[in-house]
């Protein structure tokens, strides 16, 4: 039986992670940090937002996309949960609804890495007529 992971094992493992992070910062890649916010209110959690968030954490890292993944509260789109908001550097935030694991994969490959807009965008207009 394998030894159970403990904090001591974590200490050993962190060195390799630290080396990778330093390497990334020293490389000449421009500061490109994608922000992904996953809606995690009751409706989101019940529809599986947690799995979606874990998927993004794992796969954006595996595919080498520097990103910050956080959670928000209810964005109001309870009928289309799980929902996420993706902000690519220098671009307007885009909200996607009905994000399943397959959809998350599509969003990473096509929208985040490529520049194709993917189906399932919920239009969020920040400017209203009243503001004019």
């Amino acid at each position, binding site marked *: 039986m394998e030894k*159970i*992971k*403990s*904090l*001591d*094992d*974590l*200490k050993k*493992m*962190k060195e390799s*992670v*630290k080396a*990778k*992070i330093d390497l990334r910062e020293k490389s000449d890649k421009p500061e490109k940090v994608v922000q992904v916010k*996953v809606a*995690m*209110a*009751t409706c989101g*959690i*019940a529809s599986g937002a*947690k*799995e979606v*968030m*874990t998927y993004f*954490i*794992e796969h*954006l*890292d*595996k595919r080498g996309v520097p990103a910050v*993944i*956080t*959670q928000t*509260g*209810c*964005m*109001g789109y*309870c009928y289309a949960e799980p929902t996420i908001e993706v902000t690519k550097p220098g671009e307007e935030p885009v909200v996607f609804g009905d994000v399943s694991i397959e959809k998350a994969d599509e969003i990473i490959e096509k929208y985040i890495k490529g520049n194709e807009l993917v189906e399932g965008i919920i239009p969020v207009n920040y400017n209203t007529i009243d503001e004019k």
Partner: protein
Amino acid sequence: MKDLSMHILDIIQNSVRANASTIDLNIIEDKDADLFKIIIHDDGDGMDVDTLNKVLDPFFTTRTTRKVGLGLPLLKQNAERTGGYMTINSELGEGTETKAVFSYFNIDRPSLGDMPGTITVLVGANPDIRFNYVHKTEDGEFLFDTEEVKEALDGVPINNAEILMYLRDMIKENLQAINVD
């Protein structure tokens, strides 16, 4: 909600929104007494007496995006369905404690669900909050304190993806060792 870990994630969201800096999660499995207890305590903003009295009403919420707040009422319903109960105590400026007690063996008790994934997501999204997770069964006790984890990490960010995946496995193995489902 499919399982208890989802309720836990939901209630802890409330603590996060209340600007908590430390959140304690205690899960106590007591088969002999037929009890499954979940206690979530935070040191956030707390609530005044009026709000505290309204909080179990499904049509009361502090959110502006919709008119219902189902998290607490659903948890209460699930606890009471097994013959258990839920209490919530709060003091303005001090914090809030939510306690849900279920009958362990009752068929209506939802299964625990994915605790490692839940904790991972919470830590990943809120790296500055201290999470203190204690899980007790008759076979032992597991303590997960992000303060200790950060000490071991010595500067490496706790919300780094590889670290999070490692923590998830670490929690999973330690829970298995004390026979958590």
